[in-house]
């Protein structure tokens, strides 16, 4: 391995500069990690507001009276219930089994009794309800004694590690909630050169990842080691934005002497925590449109996922809790809280002193990509990185004006799309135009809407456009199927008709033959070849 020379003591002073990668013999070794950090197009600088919680140590929460655990907290198919009402469960027992390849298992966040399995409102843009397992905690919070970890994960087979991670229901904790074991099982024909740990936390307000790194840096490294082993990859980069100097320092200390894991301080720029942008900054490569990071030899995992993986492999514990940043001008006592999955947002807010009266919006996730909540009696799920209560001063919500074509959105888009054109096509229902302007490459980061002087809710239009296209696609398929069916029916009817005709002709021919048998022999001689010819026509 090469020796990494860090020219400017990056990070400790929050400075950004060149990371030169050298071999000890003097020859430059580029590898997949670019020698100088690259830039991604566009991006914005929203006010951080991280000072509200960056000093708040991660705190536990008193056990709520009830936990409502949704059976669909991840990208992919919902889980299938594995318990019945009345069952007693230990903490960590299976509540739901994986409902498909892209799916995840769900576990009991505490010990107690299954009180109900019923529909309950969840964090969904349409305010939908979802099947949830309701648990009444017994107060003992006792792990299943059968759960056991491994002290030396390196002795495990990579496939065994993947199976354990799959069994523990671990999904991407950055918010996308993609099942983690899939991202640790790259296709055989792809080579993974780099494990990239996403510790960027570019969303304003959120500090849960930064606190995790400050408080448990060794566990992050342990998680990374397990993932490197599972991927059989030799190199790891931890990307952290320069506005988290303490986290950078903690991580640098933790990786000291380990040349295969490197901490890289990144200039602050939203949306750097987006997988595609982070890959471009660190490697200079772009994930192909409609492709995956593995296509350019990179696997990206969130830093909190690394810790969850460590807990699973070393302690045998499935994913039953996560760290949530509870913050915003509307929260009485902002904090970083370790919350059991299934705890109601209401309970978490109450633990943090409740909402101030001037709260205008409650958001699950960050302010740029999070989901505004209709109601607060919905459960925290695996992807809930933050609970934000924003006051009118903090949150947008002015009236929409016509686009003045200023081009700010074009300059801000990290994908180099032309957001104003896309929004116009969506708004005017020119659905067919949308794929031509690459709507599906939009990552919905919200940079365009953030800079828009006309306050156009561009992301809203994009979501509408994507949905409309999906509906249209479904309808087109349905139409094609209907057409195919009706065509098949017509063909069948035609065939049947032909068959009937043929039989009729045959009958006629037979009748004629019978008649001629009854009549003179010379007549029979003349008519029979013609009749047989006629009868044979359909076969020709």
């Amino acid at each position, binding site marked *: 391995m090469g020796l990494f020379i860090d020219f400017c003591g990056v990070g400790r002073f929050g400075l950004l500069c060149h990371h030169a990668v050298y071999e000890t013999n003097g020859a430059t070794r580029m590898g997949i990690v670019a020698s100088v950090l690259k830039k991604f197009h566009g991006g914005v600088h929203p006010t951080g507001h991280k000072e509200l919680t960056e000093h708040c140590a991660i705190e536990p929460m008193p056990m709520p009276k009830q936990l409502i655990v949704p059976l669909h907290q991840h990208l992919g198919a919902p889980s299938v219930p594995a318990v019945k009402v009345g069952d007693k469960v230990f903490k960590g027992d299976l509540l739901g089994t994986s409902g498909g390849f892209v799916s995840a298992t769900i576990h009991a966040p505490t010990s107690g009794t299954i009180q109900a399995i019923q529909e309950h409102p969840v964090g969904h843009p349409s305010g939908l309800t979802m099947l949830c397992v309701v648990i009444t905690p017994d107060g003992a919070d006792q792990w299943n004694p059968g759960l056991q970890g491994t002290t030396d994960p390196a002795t495990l087979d990579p496939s065994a590690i993947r199976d354990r991670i799959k069994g523990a229901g671990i999904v991407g904790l950055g918010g996308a909630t993609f099942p983690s074991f899939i991202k640790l099982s790259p296709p055989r024909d792809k080579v993974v050169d780099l494990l990239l740990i996403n510790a960027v936390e570019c969303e304003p307000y959120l500090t849960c990842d930064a606190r995790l790194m400050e408080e448990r840096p060794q566990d992050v490294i342990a998680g990374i080691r397990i993932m490197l082993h599972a991927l059989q990859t030799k190199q790891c980069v931890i990307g952290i934005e320069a506005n988290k100097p303490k986290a950078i320092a903690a991580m640098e200390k933790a990786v000291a002497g380990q040349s295969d894991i490197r901490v890289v301080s990144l200039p602050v720029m939203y949306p750097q925590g987006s997988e595609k942008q982070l890959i471009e900054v660190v490697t200079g490569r772009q994930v192909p449109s409609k492709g995956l990071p593995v296509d350019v030899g990179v696997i990206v995992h969130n830093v909190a996922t690394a810790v969850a993986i460590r807990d699973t492999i070393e302690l045998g514990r499935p994913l039953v809790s996560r760290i949530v940043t509870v913050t915003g001008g509307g929260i009485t006592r902002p904090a970083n809280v370790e919350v059991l999955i299934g705890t109601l947002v209401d309970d978490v807010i109450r633990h943090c002193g409740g909402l101030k009266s001037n709260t205008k919006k409650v958001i699950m996730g960050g*302010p740029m990509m999070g989901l*505004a909540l209709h109601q607060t009696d919905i459960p925290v799920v695996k992807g809930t990185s933050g609970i934000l209560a924003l006051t009118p001063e903090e949150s947008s919500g002015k009236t929409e*004006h016509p686009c003045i074509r200023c081009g700010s959105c074009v300059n801000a888009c990290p994908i180099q799309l032309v957001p104003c054109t896309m929004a116009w096509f969506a708004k005017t229902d020119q659905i067919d135009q949308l794929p031509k302007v690459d709507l599906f*490459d939009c990552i919905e980061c919200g940079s365009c809407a953030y800079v828009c002087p006309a306050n156009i809710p561009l992301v809203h239009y994009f979501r509408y456009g994507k949905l409309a296209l999906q509906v249209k696609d479904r309808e087109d398929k349905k139409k094609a199927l209907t057409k195919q069916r009706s065509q098949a029916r017509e063909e069948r009817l035609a065939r049947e008709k032909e068959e009937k005709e043929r039989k009729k002709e045959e009958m006629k021919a037979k009748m004629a033959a019978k008649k001629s048998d009854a009549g003179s022999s010379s007549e029979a001689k003349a008519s029979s070849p013609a009749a047989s010819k006629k009868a044979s026509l359909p076969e020709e």
Partner: protein
Amino acid sequence: MSPSSLSFTSSPHVHGGDSIPRIMHTVILALVPATLLSILVFGWPALWVIVITTLTAVVTEHLLVKLRLRPSPVGDLSAALTGLLLALTLPPHAPWWICVVGGIFAILLGKQVYGGLGYNMFNPALIARVFLLISFPVEMTTWPHPVGLFGEEALAFGDALALIFTGHVAPGEVMDAISSATPLGQYRIEVSLGKTVQEALGGTYAFSYFNATGGLVAGSLGETSALFLTAGGIFLLKKRVITWHIPLSMLAGCLIPAVLFWLIDGTKYPDPIFHLITGGLVLGAFFMATDMVTSPVTPLGQIIFGAGCGLLTYIIRTWGGYPEGVSFAIVIMNATVPLLDQYTRPVIYGKTKKNI
């Protein structure tokens, strides 16, 4: 918490704080130095031209939108900006009815018929100026000599008002003694008569690069001081209201051919500095071509658009029927914007070659 008390909107939930009024306000602020200079150079009539044109634009916008039963948008300052920009393209002694007709035309036929702000195809101020120029050529090309606000020949406040509204200061008195040709006009007329550029601009006309840069020559109100307009343009760049693409490419589009032809025949074609500091090139490059609604949104589109504006300006200035071509050039290029936007979309992330 009950569902009704929480605001439920799509992400993002925070906003950078930019707004249409802020943009318009910044552009107006950037025009203040050049506007004040024009009053200082051309005297009180200039003030009246600016006031009447701007007021007409604002009142027209207010009334038209009220007619459509919509809330009045004059608070966004876009009509005020259109009025100011139009005023800066008018001769300093333009009669009141030129100002009024121009202001109404800009807002009515330049903007509101399309549906208001954001929907117009052509720069409203310039389309109005083009209309005035081809309809009332005499009033639009009478250029008074810059007499200053307080100089000996300067008009008093009241006299200026009388001049704008009646055409003369006192009954019977004619004001033709102080009119003069713009540098571009002088060059075109004299060169067409067979003189060299040097003969045309020298002699009694006594063209001075210093005076032209500072705005002390005959011409429209705002197009005379390249220096003050450039300062305003740099302010807009600093405030990120505009980007470099259009101004730079427009200047280059005009000045590169100017250099070429000047090198070919310096007696027939004036030097590029002359082209830069006279006429409306700088006003056009920083304030007119950069009008957001009527320019492309993609960087490449903006460069092509700007270059086209500059090149057409040079062509019209050199061979066209009018001595100045900035307005025509920009209005013609406005028509290409939808096409430019469609064919100059950037290559998006993941479709470039950066994936090996």
